[in-house]
């Protein structure tokens, strides 16, 4: 019955969709948008060139894969998320962190990495279970780097660095773009530019955000499509499929208003956004409406979990959406624990634990656990030393990767020394990353379907590091 309904709806919508697809060609995903109504000749030329480029590069996949990025805004203090439990290393940790240190006995054992025992934060029992069952891996001390950095090279200014280390928005932009350019694009955006052509649905962006605009998913041609944890709303009193003639008339007028030629860039951008939103709302809603709801329980009062649940629902609807490659982005805040860290961190980690654990279970329910890889990223790590009540902006930090395709149960990368003033420390326990975000992203991107020839475009500084694949994604 459900499929029939979809089929019928599809027929009913067909002509309108065709029309909108035409009107929106490129606007949602491929080119400069219906701005071309008023675009000058050179812009049109540019748009045409891009379309051509995209069609030349058309990729095809016979499977579905999704990357889900959970961006921990504010700078997650992962040195309290993964903690050494062997006595020498724990004592270094305890002595550096003082009042912020977790009790040795409270840590959830993860096993050894380079002969040192590590434990997970006690609020992360669900993730520990995923680690034990080899569905989760950890990446140690990853961060924003242009090239490898040593303490001496840093102190002597003899190394290229990302701009404005320790500044929130600059580091967010860098980690999401891996560029220092004045008009950066995101690495998932660039991946989208290369892979979007694989999706039969060229109207819906390959990159979907549950947290609004972000650099990471914005490429030259592919931009994030934004939806909410509750799904997608339809425009009120502007239903193109209404049974009331008055509403159809109104919708037709509004459509013509939006399609007017406009010379002002802002009104044009607004009109394009509204047209895209209007057209895609029915596409997405129709697909969701005929998809069985996920039955895996998700924790209530957990906004991350609500967003992940909607992502699960979108993955369930992949067939109806006609997509084979998708990225999803969620940004969650409050990780900037300058104050009250002892109380805030358990709540933040518990939120992560419950949400990610439920989401993994949902992918199992869908039979998609091997097709979906979830990973975390964050502005930066935090100082090992305390400011009395919390921590300040650091640099390197640990991240989580979850999914059936992840080589789980292991810690990848190199764990830093946690003693203050060690060779890994540039001051106050700001730890120099030993793995770059380029390497982290490239390992994910290769699994996702990028080819070796794509790597330099998507991960511009990857060539500065000796390993372009960290090995945490199974073959």
């Amino acid at each position: 019955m459900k499929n029939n309904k979809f089929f019928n709806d599809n027929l009913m919508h067909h002509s309108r969709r065709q029309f909108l697809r035409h009107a929106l060609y490129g606007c949602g995903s491929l080119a400069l948008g219906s701005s071309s109504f008023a675009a000058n000749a050179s812009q049109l030329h540019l748009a045409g060139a891009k379309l051509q480029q995209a069609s030349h590069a058309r990729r095809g996949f016979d499977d579905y894969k999704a990357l889900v990025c959970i961006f921990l805004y504010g700078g997650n203090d992962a040195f309290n998320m993964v903690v050494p439990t062997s006595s020498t290393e724990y004592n270094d940790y305890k002595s550096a962190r003082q009042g912020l240190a977790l009790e040795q006995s409270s840590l959830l054992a993860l096993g050894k990495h380079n002969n040192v025992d590590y434990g997970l934060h006690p609020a992360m029992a669900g993730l520990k279970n995923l680690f034990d069952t080899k569905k989760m891996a950890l990446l140690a001390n990853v961060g924003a780097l242009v090239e490898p950095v040593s303490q001496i090279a840093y102190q002597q200014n003899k190394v290229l660095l990302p701009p404005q280390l320790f500044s929130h928005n600059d580091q967010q932009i860098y980690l999401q773009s891996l560029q220092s350019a004045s008009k950066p694009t995101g690495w998932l955006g660039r991946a989208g530019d290369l892979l979007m052509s694989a999706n039969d649905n060229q109207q819906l962006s390959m990159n979907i955000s549950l947290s609004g605009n972000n650099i990471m998913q914005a490429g030259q041609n592919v931009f994030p499509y934004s939806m909410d944890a509750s799904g997608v709303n339809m425009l009120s009193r502007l239903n193109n499929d209404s049974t009331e003639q008055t509403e159809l008339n109104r919708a037709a007028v509004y459509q013509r208003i939006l399609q007017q030629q406009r010379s002002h860039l802002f009104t044009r951008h607004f009109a394009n956004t509204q047209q895209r939103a209007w057209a895609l709302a029915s596409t997405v809603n129709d697909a969701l409406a005929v998809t069985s709801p996920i039955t895996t329980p998700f924790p209530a009062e957990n906004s991350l979990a609500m967003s992940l649940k909607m992502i699960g629902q979108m993955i369930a609807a992949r067939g109806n959406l006609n997509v084979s490659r998708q990225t999803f982005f969620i940004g969650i805040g409050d990780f900037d624990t300058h104050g009250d860290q002892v109380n805030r961190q358990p709540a933040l980690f518990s939120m992560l634990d419950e949400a990610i654990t439920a989401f993994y279970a949902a992918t199992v329910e869908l039979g998609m656990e091997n097709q979906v890889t979830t990973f975390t990223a964050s502005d930066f790590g935090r100082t090992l030393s305390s400011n009395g009540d919390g921590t300040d902006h650091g640099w390197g930090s640990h991240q989580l990767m979850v999914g059936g395709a992840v080589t789980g149960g292991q810690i990848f990368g190199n764990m830093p020394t946690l003693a203050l003033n060690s060779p890994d420390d540039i001051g106050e326990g700001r730890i120099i990353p030993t793995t770059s975000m380029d390497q982290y992203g490239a390992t994910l991107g290769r699994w996702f379907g990028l080819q070796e020839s794509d790597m330099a475009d998507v991960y511009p500084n990857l060539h500065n590091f000796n390993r372009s694949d960290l090995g945490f994604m199974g073959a």
Partner: protein
Amino acid sequence: MHKLFALFHRWSHLNIEVHHAVFCVLVASLFACGGGGESTSAPAPQPSVPVEPSPTPVPQHYYLSPDLSIDPTLPEPQSTTYQQAADAVRFLQQASFGANGGQIQHLMNIGTSAWIDEQIAEPQNKHLLMLDERFKEIGLIPAPVIEDDADGYYRDIQRSDVWWEVALWGKDQLRQRVAFALSQIFVISNVSDVLYNDTRGIANFQDLLATHAFGNYRDLLKAVTLNPMMGEYLSMVRNEKANPDKNIRPDENYAREVMQLFSIGLVELELDGSVRLAPNNQPIATYDQTRIKELARVFTGFNFATLTQWWEWTNSGDSEILPMKSFSTFHDSQQKQLLNGQVLSAGQSPEQDIDNAIDNLFQHANVAPFISQQLIQRLVTSNPSPAYVARIATIFNDNGQGVRGDMAAVIKGILLDDDARNGHINQSDTFGKLKEPVLLMAQLWRAFHAEGVKVKNPDGSLSRERIRFRGSDRETGQRPYGSFSVFNFYRPDFQPPGEIKESGLLAPEFQILTESSIIAKTNFLSNAIYYRDNNDADWLAEGIGHNWDVVAPKLNLQTEFALAKQPEKLLDRLNLLLFAGQLPNVLYQELLSYLQSLPNNNTYDQKLVTFEALYLLTASPEFSVQR
């Protein structure tokens, strides 16, 4: 005052803010521990009164009422005064929360310069005083000794009501509009629970911004620095000097953000706001990590004013209001090296250190272009010309009488500048800004003299008219004092991907315009227009539930209903009132033929014609952009 996590109440799950709900945790360290504390020589805390100097006496029985005056007839397009009226609307979109007939006429009568002077002299509406009265009305103690977190959201709804009533009904329009702009530079937010149940503190912070809106930037920066809400938000409160034995060093949070966001920014600027380049063609950083660490030591030793002991905890309403006070034992009194080689000698008092550090920032050459450019972006246009920024920065540096940081002169300069007045003609394809959702809704509501809604209080009584829009983030993607972080709703240099970015233009407000928020906002417009006139919305008469957080107010549309018999007259009026006469002719014709096709036989039809016109116009791209 919430070190303790609190459950963040929400009226609806349809929440587009990113937040998390966590649970109350009692922690021993938050209770008075004794030991280590020391009282200072600072005077005893003052009782609960606003601490920012008030420029004017405070009225009694303090509430605002809807402006129900009947609009004067506005000039028709052929009139010789039409262009003057259109210019007035443009000006009022920049300088207030929106134009209405009376304001348009008044501005035409006295002119822009006199209007600004009048506004500067207009008594300031005080949010905190109104809020406290409101608390009493609904049976809440304004500043309880121990706050009840269960009231937190209900209290914040009251604060939001006051904010909106002042924005829509206050006569101090320019002051409040500038305060809204300042609240997007000096950002605090109760989206996270750091400021949960700090409702009075946030209202007082708003008053602080409005008080200094026409004062001096230096005083504003100092007041913000010592404000306990900022102290909590950027963790300067209770920040103590280093304790090497415990590897504890001063918190860098405020030191970093006061430079990056509130005063000088990351890189050296020319007077015209452009980035100054070193000989190697690279930007020049204004500070480095060493400077942050030095400045962090300045901001040590401050705590809530209601405390007598450093380690005490306070939950009192007054601690949200009174400027933080110093505890010299916890202040780092060693020498500090600030910007431009300035040295603070050892042994200074905390107050001396703060004063000197504020002066050090204030005297930096970046402040004028950095602050001027952002104020222009908030009020007038996203892409001011370098010359425009330079003219305003020059006024910032010297108001003509040797005074640096004169905000009234800066604001006046911004609004009277030739670019502000004629940019829509000279830079017709790029001038202006996307209206942020708060301004968009405010302009609609002011244009049609929005009446609020009555609220059924918990004791059964009916309130006065309220503007109930605390859930504006859910409905439109933005809420005053509800930004995601100290980086505001959007960054001043945000560029939406695509054509705008490729053109090198900035468009901050587009950061919160997404497929999801644009539909939500359009739908809210629809709900705020259809059957929202003060005759039709009968169901509102019995009052809304006390904890509803969004109800679109009633509109006064008599003038429009009367014109709807002749749709072109209606469109002419709306074009002037809402678009400053800038509605493109092709849209005008499109709308006109649609309105003419609708039944128009009786007053009911005429209402519907009006609703149709208003919805399609306010949902148009042209209404969304202030040009």
